């Protein structure tokens, strides 16, 4: 029982990070129909930002702030430099552009900094543990869960209570009409990238805190999972992305934790098979983007 509880904590903690990344992908996709595979590199950029700050003996809070700032900058400049020129291109072209951006950034880090991971050391109190009833939870895992929860609440408030938040939701439905309301297309899109950047930045902070190193490929694996999560949740659906993120995290942890030893090497295949099964059952994902209309 304790074991199951403990693995549930693991699943929430991991799923939360996937959810943040998946949300970032979904926010951008819903507006510009771009599946941004370079999203992982936004995370990587943030990771290096944190590394540089900590290596320069900045306090943790300042390092986190720098990580978030460079993530936003990275995401927005990606849009400005690479994707704006491709605006309106078909999904495949955009996808390939994002692959190219992703590769370029990886190589820049590999050649500019190092192909090897660089260590990121956080203060000792962050690697402690707390006993909550039968569950022993790492301080970082706890911070991670709380941060994800807070981020989701803040994003939801932003999307519901501010004009730009409403504009982003509206743009996902009908971008030309948003422009008819006098909202600049470039602003709305840049904001979508900024939001995705900040989400990737938060994910990077949590990721780096849990893993202790930053390398040029850092963002690639989690963003692949996040992409699976967005498809599972329903491409373009924000709620779906969050649900998908948690499901992917839970599947990953459960298979790792409870598969018999002999099947462990196959767990990636098993998890993908499960996800494909879900998609066969619900081709539009678990929680597709809303089609609210009376027909």
């Amino acid at each position, binding site marked *: 029982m304790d074991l199951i509880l403990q693995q549930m904590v693991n699943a929430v903690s991991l799923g939360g990070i996937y959810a943040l990344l998946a949300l970032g992908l979904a926010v951008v996709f819903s507006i510009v129909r771009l599946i941004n595979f370079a999203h992982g590199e936004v995370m990587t950029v943030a990771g290096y930002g944190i590394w540089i700050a900590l290596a320069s003996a900045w306090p943790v809070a300042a390092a986190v702030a720098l990580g978030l700032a460079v993530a936003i900058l990275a995401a927005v400049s990606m849009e400005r430099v690479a994707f704006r020129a491709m605006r309106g291109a078909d999904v495949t072209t955009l996808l390939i552009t994002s692959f190219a951006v992703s590769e370029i950034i990886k190589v820049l880090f590999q050649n500019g900094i190092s192909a090897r991971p660089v260590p990121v050391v956080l203060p000792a109190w962050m690697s402690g543990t707390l006993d909550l009833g039968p569950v022993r939870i790492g301080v970082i895992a706890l911070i991670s869960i709380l941060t994800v929860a807070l981020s989701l609440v803040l994003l939801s408030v932003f999307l519901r209570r501010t*004009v730009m938040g409403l504009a982003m939701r509206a743009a996902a*439905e009908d971008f030309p009409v*948003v*422009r*008819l309301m*006098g909202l600049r*297309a470039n602003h709305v899109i840049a904001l979508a990238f900024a939001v995705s950047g900040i989400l990737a930045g938060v994910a990077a902070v949590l990721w780096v805190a849990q893993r202790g190193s930053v390398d040029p490929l850092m963002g690639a694996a989690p963003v692949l999972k996040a992409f699976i999560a967005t498809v599972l949740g329903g491409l373009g659906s924000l709620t779906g992305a969050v649900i998908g993120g948690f499901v992917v995290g839970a599947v990953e942890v459960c298979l790792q934790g409870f598969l018999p030893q002999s099947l462990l090497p196959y767990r990636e295949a098993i998890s993908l098979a499960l996800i494909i099964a879900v998609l066969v059952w619900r081709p539009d994902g678990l929680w597709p983007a809303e*089609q*609210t209309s009376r027909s």
Partner: protein
Amino acid sequence: MLAVRDLKVRYGAVEAVRGLDLSLARGQLLALLGANGAGKTSTLAAIAGLVPAAGRIEIAGETAGGLPPETLARRGVALVPEGRRLFAGLTVAENLTLGGAVHTPPAERRRRVAAMEERFPVLAERRHQKAGLLSGGEQQMLALARALMAGPRLLLLDEPSLGLAPQMVERVFDIVAGLKAEGLTILLVEQNVPMSLAIADQAVVLANGRAALSGPAAEVAASDHVRRAYLAA
């Protein structure tokens, strides 16, 4: 208020508008009539900046051709699009708020939302309902209210009565007449020719992207062509 000279809109090989002239004085209502596919929606889209067009478009004496829709919206052009195109997943109140997005102080937006709810009481009742779940008539009220939220100088209406019950159609024309009475300049695209000509000052009949007929509404209404084709007389 609006002067259009030799307007041409094409979609690839399709020439939707082939050299159209329009002029609309401040406070006047121009009815743009014509059969399906005549190029009415394309004309409005070009004026609102949604599609690229050749020719000259002037709004309030300033060149407006080639400007993006957001800039035109800030200059006082509001379009109620064909099929309404509400943000279905957003609530009534959220749709209205976005309509007033050009007004930066939030207090001003709230004041305007309240004014719209007073003008269209049904919207106040449905404030927190998703726009996509409103009835057709309610949706048309919301689409109008959303456009009015910006406080436009030039209102472009694309078939506001389309698909509505007769009672509702009358209500829509009453509202449009009311807006004209308040001094708003309106370009009205409609299929309901008699009711449009009844409230219009000027009228243009489009056919194959060209003006087949134009002049004061009463003259157009009296023309043989219109009487035969649209007024069943």
